[in-house]
């Protein structure tokens, strides 16, 4: 077959994605970048205003910093806790005991459920007076906080809830654990290694790629936290999402409000690019840092 014919055939097969890439990824990305330099309310034509949006966002909009702080808080607690809990659960499930598939099913189930339904259930769990959590706390003699109605406790509430849905990360860890060859443990046992030493020196290094993957994906996902906050914290009605004193106004929630409640499309695009830059920087440094701690079997690091 002629070379150009061969190439054409290949492009034909991947053409749905190629077209989609231009229509739904690259094109809109470029558009969004252009829009971030405009003022545009959809009603009138866009107006080029240079860097004004960026200036406004970075030096004149306290809610940008508030929402960035909220998001950072959420990421800073929910990601490491999520990675730890999912690792712990995977280690527990990796024992050769009866009933493991039953426990795995239970831990995994919440992670595939409908987030809106789950958010509503957790709203009720966090209800200060009659919710499950404060009923339990009261039972052990603790006066529970107002959770979603409290500026201090609304973010911890959402972090707590996020831990309930870590099943996906757990499964990835578990698969990595089950890929570790048995011989390694046997060899270590011959050398006198036991319990914690085996975990520390064999298990953990060998599943660092899975942990790294979970970390990268969790950080990207947590920076985009939206639905929970949108559904659970609209205490004062529509348009008022963000919780008490904007304590759960996360960055994407703020962006959503700018774009789809106030129709400030230019400014919202600017916010999107600020978020994108932050995520890129975080991901970049994670890949850089990963060379120091992620172990790859082929012997090379990073």
């Amino acid at each position, binding site marked *: 077959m002629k070379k150009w014919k061969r190439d054409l055939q290949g492009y034909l*097969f991947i053409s749905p994605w*190629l077209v989609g890439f231009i229509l739904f*990824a690259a094109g809109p990305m470029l558009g969004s970048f252009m829009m971030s330099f405009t003022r545009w309310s959809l009603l009138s034509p866009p107006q080029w205003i240079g860097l004004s949006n960026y200036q406004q966002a970075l030096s004149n909009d306290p809610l940008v910093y508030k929402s960035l702080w909220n998001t950072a808080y959420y990421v800073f607690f929910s990601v490491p806790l999520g990675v730890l809990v999912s690792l712990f659960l995977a280690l527990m499930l990796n024992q050769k005991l009866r009933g493991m598939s039953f426990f795995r099913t239970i831990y995994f189930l919440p992670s595939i459920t409908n987030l809106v339904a*789950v958010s*509503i259930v957790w709203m009720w769990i966090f209800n200060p007076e009659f919710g499950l959590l404060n009923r339990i706390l009261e039972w052990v003699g603790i006066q529970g906080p107002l959770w979603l109605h409290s500026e201090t406790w609304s973010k911890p509430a959402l972090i707590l809830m996020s831990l309930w849905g870590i099943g996906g990360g757990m499964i990835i860890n578990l698969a990595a654990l089950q890929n570790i060859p048995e011989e390694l443990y046997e060899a270590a046992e011959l050398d006198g290694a036991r319990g914690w030493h085996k975990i520390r020196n064999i298990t953990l290094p060998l599943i660092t790629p899975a942990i790294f993957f979970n970390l990268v994906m969790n950080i990207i996902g947590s920076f985009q936290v939206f639905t929970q906050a949108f559904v659970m914290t609209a205490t004062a009605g529509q348009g008022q999402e963000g919780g008490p004193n904007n304590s759960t106004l996360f960055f994407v929630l703020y962006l959503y409000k700018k774009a789809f409640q106030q129709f400030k499309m230019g400014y919202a695009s600017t916010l999107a690019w600020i978020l994108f830059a932050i995520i890129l920087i975080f991901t970049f440094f994670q890949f850089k840092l990963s060379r120091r701690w992620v172990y790859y079997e082929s012997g090379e690091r990073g």
Partner: protein
Amino acid sequence: MEKIAGKKYYALLRLGFSYLILVAMSMVFITPFIWMVSSSLHSLEGVFKVPFDWIPDTLHWDNYHQAITLLPFGRYFLNTAFIVTMVLAGTIFSCTLVAYGFARLQFRGRNKLFGLCIATMMLPAQVTMIPLYTIFARLGWVDTFIPLILPAFFGSPFYIFLLRQFFMTIPYQYDEAALMDGASRFRIYWNIILPLSRPVIATVVVFTFIGVWNDFFNPLIYINSFEKATLTLGLNLLKNQIIGSGVTQWHLLMAASVLVLIPNIIVFFLAQRQFMKGLNVGGLKG
């Protein structure tokens, strides 16, 4: 002898401790579900009772009937089912074709393009959604299902990746033999690769189903009409309606939540293996 007995004792203790933790964690994970179901079967006074009756004296099944008549949930179910079906068709069609191209055809720039495809997985939706919205708005497609369905026909990086990984494990001799017999590449894709790939296609179906069923953001921005909502969007509408009206009728909200979660749970139990496979390919090779 004593040493062996001690070892046995230690192993038993460890076993007991492991199960203690496993069971305790199970309680933590399962209790919100039980709380939801229990609340959904209470009367309004029942949910506010202290202490809480985990099993209500009378089971108020009519809560379910009430919950689904507050909003047109039958309609929402049909809307969602329609969108899911169309997205499934689009996703399977486009992703298998593209994955076949990337997995088994030689062409210039293939690896670079595949890398680009993978890279778009990390692209946050926020960077593209505003221009997409304005384009769909200009085309007059806001408040239709088109923005929710159309993109599925143009491939989705994660599924392309998943399918490609599987296609690469199918022996190339099949293709070569078929080519010798004069079969076209499309025929090979259609008659050989697709039938052999049922397991991985099942995984894509399950992930797509759950993804669309649970999607909130896209319906939220594109659907305005009350009667065009999806189940997920409708549930949020119901929540707004109930929260905004005096005493919150948690029993009805919980009943509606149970109903929205039932398909999730059914699909989960039917297709647990597919979920794990999808996650693992994504996780280990990603």
